[in-house]
């Protein structure tokens, strides 16, 4: 009786474990699917938000404008149609709220019922006009020509160099500066954190007194418990001015400030995991090395570190993961200018910081919202690639041994 009851309990627990495993995997897959579904929607959109159009005068020969050209036209950086392949005619920029400059309130009607008609009239009159207005203002016999816009493409999304997702009338969706910013900040962070982390781990596991180790380890683990906003604030007040003074820069909010903050944040992960790996080196191996006459230091770098390399690379992966995905601390110290960085000493904008700063404001399901989800997908792929690479490297090391 008892045994069958025990068997039942065993089966039950097994089932429970299976279930929780399945649910977790399922949730992960669902999240990834959701991310890519929302992100992929971006490539069905044009840079001009749905519900609005850009229109030209009928006689204008220009058939196509890129998002960047439209932005430059509306910023008055391009002022003549000749520059975008049209006739020699100066460009008149028009948006709905400018209508009162052309018509009196009486002409617009007391409940603004004549607005569509007036827009159409204006489109017919001015040869150099480019207008941006909601689709509901297209009147029946529209006098202008609506400009057909191309959809956002994946290559354009990754290669373009300007990120102005809220620019009116055409959003600029180029994420190259964001990708480069993220890579610069996190790779430099890991370059700073890895030597320090590894050295500390070796010290605690091998060299330090047991008592010192007992004090040191909790102190380092305490670092992991500090909220990232606090790191960000610390970075802004302490590290930013420090970087500015040390390198004599015009501005202290740079990629390096972000890297330094991230390096401090990644340290506890790297130290704890590599220390565990180092401690797992079999006693027999260490003693064999010492018995052969190797010194303590030789044992450390010829036996212990190579033995625990897979644990150390796991620590690196998790460290990079933390660095790449960190938002708040980076948002506060890197300056967030979306420009292509040519060195670590200029302001940068990272992908997580961009998502954190902008998602709250973007309209649900809109162009900007989808662009931010697509950014999330890009970040996901980047992290995945780095993880796989490190996995591959550490696997190869093991074989060559």
């Amino acid at each position: 009786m008892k045994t069958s009851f025990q068997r039942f309990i065993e089966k039950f627990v097994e089932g429970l474990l299976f279930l929780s495993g399945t649910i977790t995997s399922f949730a992960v897959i669902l999240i990834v699917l959701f991310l890519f579904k929302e992100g992929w929607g971006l490539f069905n959109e044009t840079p001009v938000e749905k519900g609005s159009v850009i229109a030209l005068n009928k006689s204008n020969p220009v058939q196509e404008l890129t998002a960047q050209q439209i932005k430059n036209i509306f910023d008055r950086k391009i002022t003549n149609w000749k520059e975008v392949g049209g006739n020699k005619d100066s460009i008149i920029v028009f948006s709905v709220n400018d209508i009162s400059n052309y018509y009196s309130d009486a002409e617009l009607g007391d409940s603004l019922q004549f607005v569509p008609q007036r827009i159409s009239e204006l489109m017919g009159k001015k040869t150099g006009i480019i207008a941006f207005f909601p689709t509901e203002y297209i009147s029946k016999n529209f006098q202008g020509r609506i400009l057909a816009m191309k959809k956002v493409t994946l290559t354009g999304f990754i290669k373009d160099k300007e990120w102005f997702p809220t620019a009116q009338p055409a959003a600029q969706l180029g994420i190259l500066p964001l990708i480069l910013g993220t890579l610069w900040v996190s790779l430099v962070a890991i370059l700073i954190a890895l030597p320090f982390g590894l050295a500390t781990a070796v010290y605690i596991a091998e060299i330090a007194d047991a008592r010192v180790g007992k004090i040191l380890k909790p102190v380092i683990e305490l670092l992991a418990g500090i909220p990232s906003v606090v790191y960000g604030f610390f970075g802004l007040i302490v590290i930013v001015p420090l970087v500015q003074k040390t390198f004599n820069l015009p501005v202290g909010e740079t990629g390096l400030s972000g890297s330094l903050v991230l390096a401090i944040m990644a340290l506890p992960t790297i130290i704890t995991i590599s220390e565990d790996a180092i401690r797992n080196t079999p006693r027999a191996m260490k003693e064999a090395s010492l018995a052969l006459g190797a010194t303590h230091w030789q044992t450390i770098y010829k036996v212990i570190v190579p033995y625990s390399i897979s644990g150390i690379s796991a620590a690196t992966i998790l460290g990079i993961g933390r660095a790449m995905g960190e938002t708040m601390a980076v948002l506060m110290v890197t300056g967030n200018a979306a420009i292509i960085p040519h060195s670590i000493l200029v302001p940068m904008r990272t992908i997580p910081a961009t998502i954190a700063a902008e998602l709250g404001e973007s309209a649900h399901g809109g162009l900007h919202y989808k662009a931010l989800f697509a950014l999330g997908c890009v970040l996901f792929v980047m992290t995945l690639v780095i993880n796989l690479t490190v996995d591959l490297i550490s696997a190869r090391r093991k074989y060559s041994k």
Partner: protein
Amino acid sequence: MKKAICLLAATGLMMAFTVGKVEIKVKGSDTVLPLSQKEAENYMKKNTDASITVVGGGSGIGIAALEDGSTDIAMSSRDLKVDEKMKLKDKKIKQVIVGIDALSIIVNPKNKVSQLTREQLEGIFTGAIVNWKEVGGDDDKIIVYSRESSSGTYDFMKEHVMGKKNYAATVLSLPATGAIVQSVGQTKGAIGYVGLAYLNKEVKDLAVSYDGKTFVKASIKAAKDKTYPIARPLYYFYAGDLEAKVKPYIDYVLSAEGQKTVEEVGYISVK
């Protein structure tokens, strides 16, 4: 059965309570949000039968909510746009200015420049002017600090100072106004914009001119008499048919006591 009766009695009691209460929903601009929260809190202390819910989200969101009737009052840091007016034309919208917000242009105290025209500001924020010596300062790179694009002040600068042109890509954007003050205070070539209430000794505010002749510094007085150009009214919009419901609250905000709160929060009273 007993349970069901109890439940019914409880719901009845709750309904009796809620019927007596006037519920007002206020939604919109994040700039007006702290003001409305404070006003609502004080108002509810005095009128225990009133319940006011204040939600942020942005001026556009509040106005959209007014359209579909999901809010009674829309807070806004800008006037209605033409297309919003079109959508709201059946609602007989009324507007009340509850306070004024002035934006100061701030630089580092070490900066020699003490005044700029609107055109110069436009050049600096759009990236056409990149060195302080172009506007009469030292030979230093200009570092422009801005808020993130979700902020109402970001749009306000773009519309009223920059002639609706886009910010330069090199502009540094920070997540909070406090962070801008901090950064401008510690960066020599910095320039930024903040609400009047955020000024402190760490930064220097500039006199600004829209006509190129008279330069005025931001102050409560200058914003009130409209000599300071970078100021904007803060609005409440509500539908004409709901006037009876929202009027007591709005009257309170406009009263001497309500306007004192406006100044406590850091804006300029309209009285």
